[in-house]
């Protein structure tokens, strides 16, 4: 009997028995999140199951992040379903504008190392940055948690990815994870847990750890862990991995995911000069204060290109307030950016930045599927915040490192 991966450890501690890969185990859940897009369906399913009282309501949170403020009456009514249910059942409730669920759960320390989190959103895996087994489910699975406080899991295999070497300081964590998704493939991690290792993880901060964990689902992963030294949980030294991969950071340059799949990776050099119509800075991937600081540093005292629109949606109200305190909101608005209420709307195509037919969007978010931002005739390129900012200045895809060199030349 070998050692256990982190996923096995957490499923073992929550099921009361040693969890072997491939087994089906039933676990108690520590934190259950439902949002305004899928929560109402879960509430209806809970009622159809005969549910009257939520088990462990203190462990349940409803977050109004997918369509806030409500853009049409159906959205408003769905939010009312969640609001009323939360009040009746005594669950936690976070209203419109508080921000994207994963960000605000992180800010409030709701995910702990070794915890088990289920959310009705595929990017729930973001909380793997804090050592939680956090995974996305659909509405009916969420309803099952509301009814029973538990759910079943197939114990996943784990893929180990080790980062080696030094990253070019002109590259960001988003460039790294886009490269990794391109290497592993959109379905390369399907059903699996990931564990990331490497000295680089010590050099980067929590926001970066969240960016890495956030995009796990873009490889199909069930969950994953960014194994830096302060994660608070670790795999056994003799844990068994399905596969081990090394990523050489020295090979990475700024990169993008081309339409219409997240693994359609290209180094930025292949796309430099391509015209863009809209930029988007936001989402649970790259809408944090660290991202806003990077963009504000690039745009300070300048104007965005006259042919582009630039939409900024801070990941949370706390991020928005912090950005205001640091002066970045004024910097970005003076440069020509438009701000939208913290939440998911722009990324998921509800509202807050729907592109026109034939337009090209460069976005710091996580998905570029056809139709993702609300128009199936638009094309979405995913990139780092610095690459988004560089494209906003020039109106075309621009290597942010070149911008820095030009800046240097001016000085």
């Amino acid at each position: 009997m070998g050692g256990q991966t982190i996923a096995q450890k957490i499923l073992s501690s929550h099921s009361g028995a040693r969890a072997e890969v491939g087994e089906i185990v039933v676990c108690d859940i520590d934190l259950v999140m439902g949002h305004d897009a899928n929560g109402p369906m879960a509430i209806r399913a809970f009622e159809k199951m005969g549910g009257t009282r939520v088990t462990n309501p203190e462990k349940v949170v409803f977050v109004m992040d997918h369509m806030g403020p409500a853009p049409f009456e159906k959205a408003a009514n769905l939010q009312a379903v969640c609001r009323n249910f939360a009040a009746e059942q005594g669950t936690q409730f976070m209203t419109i504008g508080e921000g994207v669920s994963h960000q605000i759960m992180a800010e409030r320390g709701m995910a702990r190392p070794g915890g088990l989190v289920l959310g009705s959103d595929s990017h729930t895996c973001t909380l793997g940055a804090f050592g939680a087994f956090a995974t996305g489910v659909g509405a009916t699975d969420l309803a099952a948690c509301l009814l029973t406080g538990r759910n079943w899991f197939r114990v996943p295999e784990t893929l180990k990815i080790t980062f080696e070497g030094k990253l070019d300081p002109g590259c960001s964590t988003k460039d790294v994870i886009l490269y990794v998704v391109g290497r592993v493939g959109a379905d390369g991690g399907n059903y699996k847990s990931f564990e990331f290792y490497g000295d680089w993880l010590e050099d980067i901060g929590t926001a970066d750890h969240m960016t890495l964990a956030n995009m796990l689902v873009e490889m199909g992963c069930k969950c994953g862990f960014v194994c830096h030294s302060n994660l608070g949980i670790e795999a056994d030294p003799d844990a068994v991995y399905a596969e081990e991969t090394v990523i050489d950071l020295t090979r990475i340059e700024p990169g993008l995911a081309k339409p219409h799949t997240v693994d359609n990776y290209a180094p930025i050099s292949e796309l430099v000069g391509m015209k863009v119509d809209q930029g988007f800075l936001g989402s649970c991937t790259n809408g944090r204060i660290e991202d806003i600081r990077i963009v504000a540093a690039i745009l300070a005292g300048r104007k965005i290109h006259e042919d582009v629109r630039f939409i900024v949606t801070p990941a949370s109200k706390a991020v928005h307030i912090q950005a205001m305190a640091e002066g970045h909101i004024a910097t970005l608005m003076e440069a020509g950016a438009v701000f939208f209420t913290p939440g998911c709307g722009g990324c998921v195509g509800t509202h807050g930045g729907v592109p026109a037919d034939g337009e090209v969007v460069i976005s710091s978010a996580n998905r570029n599927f056809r139709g993702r931002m609300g128009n199936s005739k638009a094309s979405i390129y995913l990139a780092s915040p610095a690459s988004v900012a560089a494209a906003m200045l020039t109106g075309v895809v621009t290597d942010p490192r070149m911008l820095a060199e030009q800046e240097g030349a001016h000085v």
Partner: protein
Amino acid sequence: MSDVALKYGDDISTDLIIAGKYTKTLNLQDLVDHAMEDIDPDFLSRVGDGAVLVAGKYFGCGSSREQAPVALKAAGIKVVLASSFARIFFRNAINIGLPIMECDTSSISDGDRIDFDIGTGTVTNVTTGAVIQAKPLPDNMVKILSAGGVVEYLKEQGSF
């Protein structure tokens, strides 16, 4: 007893099955009206009274929106056959009682007549005579699907 196959490619995301802008509803018909519209504007007329949806790898990737399998089921899709499924879609489909079968779909053409048996895991291409064996579902998922989905399963069992 067979149904017509509607065949699509690889990596069909839940955004393509039902766009995010159309998921903000509890009315099934709202979902049906927009199912698959960005990939096949004739989808609903082609489904008619019922059809089999056939796809390549990684069907249902992306968003966890359960509206995707719900829309397909309500539109009249009797089973989804794909060479692989994304994890959350796989679970959601079983949970809402939409049969899915993971099998080699490369020999199936659009318009073929398909018969399927969830119990034995066999898919018969009535048009060509070929018989394809699907990967068996885990026992607990067979039980959930047999009950008609998780709602019915939990109504009967009370818990997992």
